[in-house]
């Protein structure tokens, strides 16, 4: 009964780890509560995207992750 949160790019440094297991189900408020205040503040930035099950959410605030889902936090990309 868990969801895996993945921290990409600079969010990984901020989180201090690459991923974290949290209890399922997980919605937007649950996510903000699970990641700590620094990352929660980043998530409010419109340029930070959230993917669930490998798909970018059109509305990240509508997140609803279930058991076994992977939720990826995607900061602004910095190109190749």
């Amino acid at each position, binding site marked *: 009964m868990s969801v895996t949160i*993945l921290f*990409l*790019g*600079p969010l*990984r*440094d901020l989180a201090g780890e690459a991923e974290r297991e949290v209890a399922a189900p997980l919605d937007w408020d649950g996510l903000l509560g699970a990641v700590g205040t620094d990352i929660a503040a980043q998530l409010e930035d419109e340029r930070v995207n959230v*993917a669930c099950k*490998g*798909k*970018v959410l059109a509305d990240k605030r509508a997140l609803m992750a279930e058991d076994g889902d*992977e939720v*990826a936090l*995607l*900061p*602004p*990309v*910095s*190109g*190749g």
Partner: protein
Amino acid sequence: MARLVLSAPLDVRLLDKGMSVGEALAAFNAAHGEAGGVVSFLGKVRPDGGVRALELTFYAPLTLPGMEELAQTAINRFVLEGALVWHRVGVMTPGEAIVLVATAARHRRSAFEAADFLMDHLKSAAWFWKRERRDDGWHWIEPRGEDHADLVRWK
């Protein structure tokens, strides 16, 4: 040396080690013998600003599918006969290739524009995160304003 075989019309790859650029371009050229024009772009790690190394991270479920969709968009929009889009991930040192793009079209203008389009999007609208190691450690790179301006040209 085993002969490099490309998939046509699209060959899109994420590579975790160095690429043989001359071999890739020779194979691309051979695969598109009837194209009037072939354009390539090779991007390399520059040694300036005290950069010792560069690391690109990616997110597997998004990065390669996003590159494939981008390449298909370029093929349709510029009426290409083929496109090659190769991108390194992991740690690279100055002089190493980061990205190789090649486009084949009937006319040179289409091939030029498609390569330019692909690069502008790979630089600022593809799922990569970049950091550089300098003498004082690793630094995450923010997207440059110039890159966003480049992207707006194609809207």
